[in-house]
């Protein structure tokens, strides 16, 4: 797989597009974790997830990309926005979104990034994946899910049901715990 790998320079077209989308993803993610406004963080999260979905598309995983758009951008972010509203968070700029732990957190994050990048680069420097459109389409993925992975799929449905009931119980105020 890596024998016929082309060199890093010049980068191919999909690589250029992926790198640009990756830069958008990372930039918006940084904004998510640093912005002073809660609602802006949620919106930057939309940008981040959208750019990531673009990355999936470039990687020929088109079904995953659409699911990402539907569930993350569509559902999760909306849920988060609801959470922000329900907790009566300040809509405008607020100075106290970061805890006093910032420097330690930055240190740990940078160290982790350094370790991960070092390991991954040294491990996969020569790996090359030729892109083959159509591999991640709905049909092959669907046949795989409903043949090979049907049992985890069903288990997952039970998990979702449990999460549903748990969320209802936790958020309703008229259900009291046993004293």
């Amino acid at each position, binding site marked *: *797989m890596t024998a016929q790998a082309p060199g890093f320079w010049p980068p*191919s077209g999909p*690589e250029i597009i*992926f*790198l640009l989308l990756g830069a958008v993803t*990372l930039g918006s*993610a940084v904004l*998510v*974790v640093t912005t002073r406004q*809660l609602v802006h*963080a*949620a919106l930057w*999260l939309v940008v*981040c997830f959208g750019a*990531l979905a673009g*990355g*999936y598309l470039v*990687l*020929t995983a088109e079904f*995953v990309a659409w699911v990402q758009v539907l*569930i*993350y951008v569509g559902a*999760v972010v909306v*849920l*988060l926005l609801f*959470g922000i509203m329900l*907790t009566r*968070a300040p809509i405008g700029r607020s100075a*106290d*979104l970061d*805890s006093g*732990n910032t420097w330690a*957190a930055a240190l*740990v*994050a940078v160290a*982790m*990034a350094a370790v991960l990048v070092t390991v*991954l*680069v040294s491990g*996969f420097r020569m790996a*090359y*994946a*030729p*892109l083959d459109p159509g*591999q*991640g389409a709905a049909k092959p*993925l669907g046949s*795989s*899910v409903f043949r090979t992975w049907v049992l*985890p799929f069903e288990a*997952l449905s039970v*998990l*979702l049901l449990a*999460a*549903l009931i748990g*969320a*209802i119980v*936790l*958020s309703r*105020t008229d259900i009291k715990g046993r004293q």
Partner: protein
Amino acid sequence: MHVVYPVVVSALLFSIGVYGVLARRNAILVLMSVELMLNAVNLNLVAFDVWLRDRLHGGQVLTLFVIVIAAAEVGLGLAIVLAVFRTRQTIDVDRLRALSERAPGEADGEVRS
């Protein structure tokens, strides 16, 4: 495509998520950072699935499962955050210190309900 690109992007995204989890004090922002970390994992899964040309598409199927689980997790997480908010009128993570080791008479007012 060189596998290094998506993999490095995912590593950096994961580190940004870690920073968010450790540095943000609003519980909803912490949840967002957890989503970032999950997405970094998803990117990894997809990249390796493409590289390894898995006939069963294990990586992409697992990505789908992770997305579903992440949705459930966000739902539950928000429910917990709301419950905490109802009882304590705050969702600042660093003010929820019921686990702290304090002498019984010591005053730490608002976090003990």
